[in-house]
């Protein structure tokens, strides 16, 4: 289960990533953020975001055009 959920459905690039960053800022390191999105570009973007920032992308899933991500906040950032 995620510690916090962000509904970014209906938002286009770069808003899902920007909103996720804002949410992560207020979270405790090690906690997980669930992000819901409809932007197909968010699949590649959240993978890149996590590779660069060091947050762990625990899950990246798609069901009927709805994307779901689980990101664990890095303990070093």
């Amino acid at each position, binding site marked *: 289960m995620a510690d916090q959920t962000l509904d970014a459905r*209906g*938002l*286009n*690039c*770069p*808003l899902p*990533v*920007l909103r*996720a*960053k804002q949410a992560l800022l207020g979270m405790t390191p090690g906690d997980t953020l669930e992000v819901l999105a409809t*932007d197909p570009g968010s699949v590649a973007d959240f993978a890149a*975001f996590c590779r*660069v*920032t060091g947050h762990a992308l625990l899950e990246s899933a798609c069901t009927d055009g709805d994307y779901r991500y689980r990101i664990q906040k890095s303990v070093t*950032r």
Partner: protein
Amino acid sequence: MAGTMHEESESIATRRMSLIVTKGTLDWAYPPFILATTAAAMDFEVNMFFTFYGLPLLLKNLDLKLSPLGNPAMKMPMAGVHMGMPNMASMIPGVDAAASKMMQNLMNKKGVASIQELRDIALEGGVKMIACQMTMDLFEYKLEDMVSGPTIGGAATYIEAASNSDINLFI
């Protein structure tokens, strides 16, 4: 003391990006603000240098417009097809304003952020904005007409920022 600070900055290895922003139309305002906010979200230190027609993007009151004139690639989706506009149409008063309004409505409908919103996020995210002094002087803009945050600088200020950056873009 200085040695300690150096070691700390080495271990965090801050990445940096710089952008030169030269265009201030509704469409061209997007690439620099999208990239600057995203880079800042990815822990980059970002410097935006606003010069020439990019400078009005720092004004408190944004009134962004675009023109389909000389832009055959600008085709708007309408009733399932993509419609361009002949250059001649842009000469008619009100046509560019209507095209700008149409683009704005389309962006709102598609969940695209406004430039104001991206600019706010950039400023909140610590993006450094530099207003070109020469352009301010040339077009008679005053710092008090602009959002709070930007500092004044010139080419040397940009070159220093660019020389320390991993990514440098001219838009």
